[in-house]
């Protein structure tokens, strides 16, 4: 028996144990809390049920650098995947935040948090090509695949991105990967919030290799990524000051170790990039060309007022990080949307055992 076939046999066994555990929980009506490294326990609504730890189900199943696809089991550490990709000069272009060394790829997809490159490269769901889902009956279902273009059947694998484990256990996921940019440079400008929002929207309409942006405390920082010629031409056009410790700056933003995230309740306001300043008090940090605005408020803020203001701007507000688990974390949905969501939930998780209350 080769190491590979041994691993496969062990993993098959672990998956069937997961299946047995899920079936038993469904029968008993006992909630299960699907959990990888637990680095995002603070995110989302209630933590309910007995922990089903996914970390034993681990390992990269396939990685073909020239096919731009990696397939890994849910418990594979994000750090391992990033290290492997880096050896082939590739990356997860959605730049998921790394909240700790325990972060797993299953958790990355289930939470679907994307980093600074999101506005230019796309979100987690844009890179999901396929998944194996273990549903509430303990059955493994395969959706999508390991190819870039695939329109056979409904795209259930992308639906799993951001589902926070509520539809089932993501056993395995295939993700599109991209080459790392040949060249990057970061520039800094002293600018007011309004001025920064205007510039970001204007620049995004021009053929500039913008790959990230951050406005905070009167300073706009942008990152350019691409061919050397494109980056240097854009630098000449845009001006600004070179950022000396750029890699550390973007990593701190991506991993939310930036001082902004230190204390207090943090809201995530997802709005159209062109929305003007959102005036709800507190301190703000703006990313994604204006489309993601972080709001820090010491006392947590007036939930209704924040949600009303953000909705009026065409967006939604998430109570992203808060010590108070009582108030609703996610923005309320329209009744018709919530009804479809509930029917999907009932279809995949008929006993309602997976992560109740975490997302809805």
């Amino acid at each position, binding site marked *: 028996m080769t190491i590979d076939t041994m691993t496969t046999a062990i993993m098959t066994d672990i998956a069937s144990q997961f299946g047995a555990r899920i079936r038993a929980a469904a029968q008993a009506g006992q909630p299960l809390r699907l959990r990888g490294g637990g680095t995002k326990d603070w995110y989302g609504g209630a933590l309910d049920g007995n922990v089903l730890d996914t970390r034993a189900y681990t390992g990269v199943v396939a990685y073909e650098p020239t096919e731009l696809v990696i397939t890994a089991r849910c418990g594979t550490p994000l750090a391992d995947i990033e290290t492997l990709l880096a050896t*082939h000069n590739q990356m997860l272009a959605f730049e998921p935040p790394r909240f700790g060394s325990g972060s797993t790829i299953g958790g990355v997809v289930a939470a679907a948090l994307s980093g600074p490159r999101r506005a230019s490269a796309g979100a987690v769901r844009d890179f999901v090509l396929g998944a194996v889902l273990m549903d509430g009956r303990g059955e493994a279902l395969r959706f999508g695949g*390991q190819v870039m273009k695939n*329109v056979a059947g409904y*795209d259930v694998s992308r639906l799993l991105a951001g589902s926070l484990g509520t539809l089932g256990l993501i056993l395995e996921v295939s993700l599109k990967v991209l080459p790392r940019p040949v060249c990057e440079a970061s520039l800094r400008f002293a600018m007011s919030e309004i001025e920064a929002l205007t510039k970001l929207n204007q620049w995004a309409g021009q053929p500039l290799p913008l790959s990230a942006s951050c406005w905070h405390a009167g300073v706009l920082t942008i990152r350019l990524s691409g*061919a050397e010629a494109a980056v240097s031409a854009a630098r000449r056009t845009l001006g600004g000051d070179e950022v000396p410790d750029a890699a550390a700056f973007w990593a701190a933003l991506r991993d939310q170790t930036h001082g902004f995230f230190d204390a207090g309740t943090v809201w995530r306001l*997802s709005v159209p990039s062109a929305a003007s300043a959102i005036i709800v008090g507190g301190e703000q940090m703006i990313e994604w060309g204006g489309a993601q605005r972080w709001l820090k408020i010491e006392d947590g803020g007036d939930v209704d007022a924040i949600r009303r203001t953000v909705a009026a701007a065409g967006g939604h507000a998430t109570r992203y990080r808060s010590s108070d688990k009582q108030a609703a974390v996610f923005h*309320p949905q329209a009744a*018709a949307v919530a009804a479809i969501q509930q029917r999907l939930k009932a279809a995949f998780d008929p006993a309602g055992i997976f992560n109740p209350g975490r997302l809805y």
Partner: protein
Amino acid sequence: MCFRVPYMSVAVATQLDDIAARRAQVAAALLAVLPARAVLSAPEDTRPYECDGLAAYRQLPMIVTLPDSEEQVLAVLRVCRELEVPIVPRGAGTGLSGGAMPIRDGVVLSTARMNRIVRLDAYSRTAVVQPGVRNAAISEAAAPHGLYYAPDPSSQIACTIGGNVAENSGGVHCLKYGLTIHNVLGVRLATIDGDIVELGGAALDAPGLDLLSVFVGSEGMLGIVLEVTVKLIPKPPVARVIMASFAQVVDSCHAVAALIAAGIIPAGLEMMDQTSVRMVEPFVHAGYDTDAAAILLCEADGTAEEVEEDIARMSAVLAAAGAVAIAVSQTEAERLRFWSGRKNAFPAAGRISPDYYCMDGTIPRKRLGEVLAGIAQMEEKYGLRCANVFHAGDGNLHPLILFNANIPDEFARAESFGAEILALCVAVGGTITGEHGVGVEKIDSMCAQFAPLELEAFFAVKRAFDPAGLLNPDKAIPSLNRCAQFGKMRVRGGLLPFAHLPRF
């Protein structure tokens, strides 16, 4: 050519007399709530709707409706819901998988008259358009702002955004710029229950499950698109294309892998085999090397400096990978000439053969050599020729099976040939459709790709949006009975699922 495929509807009325009575009943109900010009029921008026781009499959619809507003769409839905009439949504009818093929006792809901660009905002780089707006019309409207809508399916001058959303359409530039799902921010739709639902929006995400992901590409089976918010992106000022010839097909495959390994994502990356090259060259005089076993077209776009740098890097990789000849377009006219051959592959097939059947599998690129060898063997087996064009960057293969419908059994042979190609695509780890959709055409091949429980899950998704099962029923997702009849039930792990299911 015209083939009639018998349709077995889940609904009522299968006798001819019943259809006439039913038509009168449904037409009267529709005319009570819609203007006369929005309801077509005479066969001479509904005939143009009997098929989409897959002309081999035809069915005269009972009635065609042409609503021009949300209110009228809701009125059609209400009548159909109350009378339990199945609905087939239709955009421009350019689809290649029969997704818009009518139902004998059903209503076609054409979005052709909902063709307004509601709003186009250069500052936010978004446009809100009605479903019947043509794909190319969006880019035309955005052009004065230096912006465009990226997905460019080959039918873009005719196909509509509503159809693009239904099929998750791609195009030759989707390796770099993505599919419809990557370029649509939000969809406003009507459910069969008459609810208006907004999925996504002008922000980059929405609370709750990402229902937009599952709606895009759902082939008109989950809801009727009322409005689409699309992303517009800056038009690259310059584009140039490299045409490289290879003495062996396998060399061209390695060249594609070498480009990706070098960290290059070309704006377009297309391969044509010798049969395709020899088919198109006399037709368009693109300057292709007809002695080459395969040619690659590799495009770079961006600013002039960026393109120059990329072209130099790509040329070096292609030369190192064994390209026997490399030509780089020097002018826009030359670029368009290089592309003209690829873009005219389908018409050229129509020129040298009375009929052709276009397949749409996707495979892991490294398996291309094997798949092409398999297709060559099938040419012998079925006694039909096949030309291969390939979206090489993303592994999407379009074998064009050439046949003559006037020769008895040639279409049947072409169909079997096609089904065998798709089975091979699945066997090597690919999929039966990369961009054309399943529709009615590939519904049996779905049985080869998905296990019964997965098909059940798809039906559950459909029921979550369309509990009544009236929207484009019996398309895209085969019933388990149908798979049992087709005899290609996917079995994993040696166990036969649903052992109790009757098989015929």
